[in-house]
């Protein structure tokens, strides 16, 4: 893919976008002219895709990258006013959407979904040969999309497949059309490092077949690992374009500079607690553990999903719980917070057993252990102002009078970079990153001793995630007494923590100081999850 045989000047692009403008007229739908209040979703974008090369389009959500890609499919938002040229090869353009499940018909078996597409390509064969030709093409596409055990999977319905398998089926569909251009829309968003690496391999394999790939992403690790050409998009325009190395080493635009800036050396707090060089299990050390989990077995519908012999958290400590999706890490956080009641064993706070259910916990116990949800938008009531909702924590859990609670909430929110004017609005008017910070403030108003943060950075784009991590770092500095549990699959987030526990398939795979786990992981899962993303480039087969 990075091979020198593909050169810009000599090779003709497979697909091309020339000066594309997509403008939504203000108010009225389908108006012909550009009304005064018109809004350009895409504003003069030009893009070339070459055979066998991966072109990355990077930008925050709302930057216009999806609209640009949709133009290659010949699709535009209803009522949009479109100018410019879009040149694509004959035949369909492959499209791998962010949520593959939505693109697979729930009422049809995988076999039928693939055959339908294959059938359209064998019309010129004699009738009796078509059937075998279709079967052969389907199986070949499955192999090319790295869909193992195709014979079994073909008989299933899409909902019976895992997310990864669904994505590969969608990819197989694209390959079956004989598409020379494939668009991959945010293929790695919200995935853990292992899954990401597998997707990187897949896309690299697609490009090796001589297909032009357009990768839409805000995941810089993946872009760095894959892209031959990099386009940075912001507010409907391409700010910067070129080979990734160029863009990376000499970014011209300040926004690009901010986006591509290396992660701050360490988010970790300046003076870590005395236990930076600890013995492996915390049992015998000086400060008594604040939170202690003993012989915990958590169930989902009677199936055990998490077994944890012993895990403790000291006052002021930051513990990262790392694992792939489905490893049981969220269940652990929810057990601690009292949101998941089906477990055996005990969870002790200050030596006192915490009731399993929130309903049975006293106000003081509720306040002591707080939880920040993965999706902040779902965790707020959309009908009430954010400020009021945040302040309720202090009113209910600490019996603070409403006026004082509102003032404290406003201060806490302001410290997290959310001005009062903003938080007086209702949640739908705030961005995902802003709501996540508000959710953090809501939990902090309880003056918790243990704060469980569940994947609070996943699903946010690079800049938003970085700002949230900066705030978390600040939090660790300003509130030394606060113990933090960071549930994550993100290396940068885990790097904040003093200690890291790695979960694999419901069991504790490894546990120790974060620095040691980062440098010398003992368990393969740890290695895979915490390995620096730079190593992907080398690993993606050339």
């Amino acid at each position, binding site marked *: 893919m990075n091979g020198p045989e593909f050169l810009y000047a000599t090779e003709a692009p497979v697909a091309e976008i020339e000066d594309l403008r997509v403008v939504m007229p203000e108010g009225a739908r389908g108006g012909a002219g550009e009304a005064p209040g018109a809004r350009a979703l895409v504003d003069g974008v030009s893009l070339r895709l070459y055979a066998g090369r991966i072109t990355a389009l990077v930008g925050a959500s709302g930057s216009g990258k999806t609209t640009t890609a949709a133009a290659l499919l010949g699709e535009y938002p209803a009522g949009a006013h479109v100018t410019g040229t879009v040149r694509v090869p004959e035949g369909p*353009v492959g499209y791998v959407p962010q949520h593959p499940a939505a693109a697979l018909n729930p009422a049809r078996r995988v076999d039928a979904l693939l055959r339908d597409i294959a059938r359209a390509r064998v019309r010129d064969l004699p009738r009796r040969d078509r059937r075998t030709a279709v079967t052969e093409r389907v199986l070949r596409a499955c192999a090319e999309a790295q869909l193992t055990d195709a014979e079994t999977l073909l008989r299933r319905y899409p909902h019976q497949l895992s997310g990864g398998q669904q994505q590969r089926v969608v990819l197989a569909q694209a390959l079956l059309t004989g598409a020379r251009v494939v668009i991959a829309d945010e293929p790695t968003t919200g995935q853990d490092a292992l899954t990401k690496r597998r997707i990187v391999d897949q896309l690299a394999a697609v490009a090796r077949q001589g297909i032009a790939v357009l990768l839409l992403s805000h995941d810089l690790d993946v872009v760095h690992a894959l892209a031959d050409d990099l386009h940075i998009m912001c507010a409907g325009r391409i700010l910067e374009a070129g080979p990734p190395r160029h863009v990376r080493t000499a970014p011209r635009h300040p926004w690009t500079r901010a986006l591509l800036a290396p992660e701050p050396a360490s988010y970790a707090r300046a003076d870590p607690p005395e236990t930076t060089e600890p013995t492996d299990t915390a049992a015998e050390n000086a400060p008594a553990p604040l939170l202690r989990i003993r012989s915990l077995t958590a169930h989902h519908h009677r199936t055990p999903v998490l077994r944890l012999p012993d895990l403790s958290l000291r006052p002021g400590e930051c513990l990262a719980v790392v694992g792939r999706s489905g490893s049981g890490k969220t269940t652990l956080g929810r057990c601690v917070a009292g949101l998941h009641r089906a477990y055996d064993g005990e969870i002790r706070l200050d030596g006192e057993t915490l009731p399993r259910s929130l309903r049975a916990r006293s106000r003081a116990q509720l306040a002591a252990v707080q939880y920040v949800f993965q999706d902040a938008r779902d965790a707020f009531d959309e009908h009430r102002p954010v400020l009021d909702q945040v302040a309720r924590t202090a009113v209910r859990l600490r019996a603070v009078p409403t006026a004082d609670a509102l003032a404290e909430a406003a201060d806490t929110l302001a410290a997290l970079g959310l001005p009062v004017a903003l938080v007086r609005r209702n949640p739908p008017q705030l961005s995902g990153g802003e709501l996540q910070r508000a959710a953090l403030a809501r939990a902090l108003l309880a003056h918790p001793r243990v704060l469980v943060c569940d994947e609070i950075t996943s699903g946010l784009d690079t800049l938003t995630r970085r700002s949230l991590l900066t705030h978390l770092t600040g939090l660790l500095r300003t509130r030394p007494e606060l113990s933090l549990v960071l549930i994550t699959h993100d290396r940068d987030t885990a790097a904040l923590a003093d200690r890291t526990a790695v979960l694999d398939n419901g069991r504790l795979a490894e546990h120790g100081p974060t620095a040691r786990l980062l440098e010398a992981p003992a368990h393969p899962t740890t290695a895979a999850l915490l390995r620096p993303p730079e190593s992907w480039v080398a690993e993606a087969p050339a």
Partner: protein
Amino acid sequence: MTGSGTGGGAGQAARGGDLRAWLVRRLLLGAGQTVAVVLLVFALTEALPGDAAVALAGDQPDPARIAAIREALHLDRPAHERLVAWAAGLLHGDLGTSLTSGRPVATYLANGVGPTVLLAALTVTLLVPLSVGLGVLAARHEGRFVDRLVSSVTLAVYAVPEFALGVLLVTVFALRLGWLPPTAVGFGDDLLAHPAALVLPVLVLLSRPVCSLVRLVRAGMIDALASPYAAQARRYGIAGARVRYAHALPNALAPAAQQLARTIDWLLCGVIVVEALFVIPGLGTVLINAVAERDVPVIQGLAVVFGLTAVVLNLGADLVARRFAPRAGVAA
């Protein structure tokens, strides 16, 4: 934590188990409903105020008649014994004897079942193709005249009581135009030989279920055609008709199949009304007459038959819905 789907054979087995567990739960619910129907029907006669025999004797409370009723209903025996005896009779097809005529209830059923089954069968046969056809037609022309016409008419008609609609149709087609007979009076039991007499009853019986199903099929079709998977199929060059009928339609039918259960309720109600309106000697007419005469054994027998039919058809509709929407957990 939402466990990302398991890919392996274990997952498949678990899902097979899910289906079996669902089936068991659904069958248990059906059994519960059956028992409930039987108990309810029995309990209602128990709930008769005062002396049941006196209450039932109604207009002619002479002692001989009261004694006859007491004898026929075995009112001298304790309630639980009567329940056991009655339920045991049900199992053998013995539904008791009528209070008014002294004939076995089973003969009432045998006489009435023909016209009712004919009406219901005709209606259901026409119902499905008509609803799917109209629904797809409207969805294909979404927002245009055909769609607006179909949508408005189905919306307007589907809440109209059958008797009011039926009476107006009779006024127009039988009275003013003279095209069709106003009732089935004079055609005896052999309605099939007089198809003209069946046109209006079937039309009226169809009115509500068709309207509700057309609306569901139309909405489901529009959603399915606008879905990402339909867009993907079109993108990849699959012919329009195939996208419509092979890809979108099965998804559009899922909510309609679930509504079928509700439709059964309507059909059973509708049959009673339509038979009363068009004087068709079916089970509905028998039931209405028995209610008017407070002929308890006949009411009980008919209620059990109607109730169990509803339970069985509901069960069937749920199975069909489950087939069309393998993902959705149909209530059980």
